């Protein structure tokens, strides 16, 4: 993989740091009145998800990380792995529980997800911003209540719990924002 010097740093550039691939979130150049310039860089560790603050001497260079983002379709879970397919090449990727992480609560068969590959191995899965899930358990609904005050917890078919309005019943399909785990509407 090529090396990148600080003058080539830009948001979204993927670099190796501490053995993990990282993505640049922001890059601030600091040039003191007296003394050499440096780059203050915010990066996201793509494996741990941690945000790192790093200072580099200007001119320093880092190894690039072979990171790719692919749009893959989630097709099924076979009990051990989560299986995705590239709809163009039909190539399949089996992804383990640890890599799926919190995305597991939002994976709906046939949905397109963004899968991050590092050296061709999946390291992260991002579900769509909105997914449609089915309510499998919640307290009985209250007739006549529209989307008013309060709410109640409801368990989805994927196992996660979402706060929903009182009128939602078991069997209802709802739209959930995967970034905030919030109910947005009936589907």
């Amino acid at each position: 993989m090529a090396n990148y010097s600080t003058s080539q740093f830009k948001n979204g550039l993927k670099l190796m740091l501490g053995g993990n691939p990282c993505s640049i979130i922001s890059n601030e150049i600091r040039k003191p009145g007296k003394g050499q310039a440096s780059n203050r860089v915010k990066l996201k560790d793509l494996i741990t998800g941690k945000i790192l603050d790093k200072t580099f001497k200007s001119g320093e260079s880092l190894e690039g990380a072979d990171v790719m983002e692919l749009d893959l379709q989630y097709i099924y879970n076979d009990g051990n792995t989560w299986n995705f397919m590239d709809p163009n090449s039909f190539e399949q990727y089996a992804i383990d529980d640890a890599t799926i992480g919190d995305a597991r609560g939002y994976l709906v068969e046939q949905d397109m997800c963004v899968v991050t590959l590092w050296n061709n191995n999946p390291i992260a899965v991002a579900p769509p911003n909105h997914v449609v899930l089915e309510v499998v358990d919640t307290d009985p609904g209250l007739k006549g209540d529209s989307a008013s005050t309060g709410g109640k917890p409801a368990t989805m078919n994927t196992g996660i719990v979402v706060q929903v309005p009182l009128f939602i019943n078991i069997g209802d399909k709802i739209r959930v924002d995967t970034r905030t785990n919030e109910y947005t509407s009936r589907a």
Partner: protein
Amino acid sequence: MNTQAELKKHHQLIKKIRRFFDNQGLIEVQTRHLLDYPTTDVYIDSIKTQVNKAFKPELKYLHTSPELEMKKLLANGSGDIYQICQVFRDNEQGQHNFNEFMILEYYRLGFNIHALMDDITNLLKTLGFNQPTTRLSYAQAFKKFAHIDILNTDFDKLKKIAKSHDLYADFEWIEDLQILLFTDLCEPKLKTLPLCFIYDYPKNQSALANTQGQIAHRFEMYLWGIEVANGYEELQHANDYQNCFKHDIDKRATLGKPLVEMDKDFLSVLQKPLPQCSGVAVGIERLALNLLK
């Protein structure tokens, strides 16, 4: 383009600055912007230009600071002086750095850096700044923010510390490593302080300031973590300047930067030494942006 309101605001700021100095009897001066010699400063590059192409081509350099020209006046007995002018620097990069910016530079005879810090604080007050002031020596800042005894940590030990913070450590000069550590470990902590002076730098970061034992009588002024001013208790003798210029020129050569010549005219004027004085350069745009945050 600036709106009329912005123009008026800037005009008022400059007028207030002038009044502050005029009331104390300083003389406002204008020195040449087009010079025969580039700066020797290792990390500042002069913009060069060719003049008189039609008959006698010559290289000239836009001034990066009015410092040396003003010091010639001081050596000639000008007394307290100030200047507000545009300066020009090549290869500037960063959110707060530009190829052209405005500087206020002034010199006070008989002042040490503490008297000068008091004076700038008063200037800021007359410009409407009324927040608490912090003064930390360079050593105190390193102790407080990074738990490092910066004046008594040798180069090898400092390299180990840098590595433990995942920082580049393969430097040839200790001052470059000190500056990187300061940028990484101390400077971010200054963001919460409205006005902070960092003073008494390690001797190897003396630039053109007087030294005493391990330290150089220099300060930097930060507004909300942004470096706005740089002040020195000035060197007085030509041979001290010559040594500094030579050190910078050698360092530039080692770093593969364009070679520069030292200003011989300056050194010959300084045969009559500078009076004991302190001087400071203030970035006007940065001051205006951060003064009344």
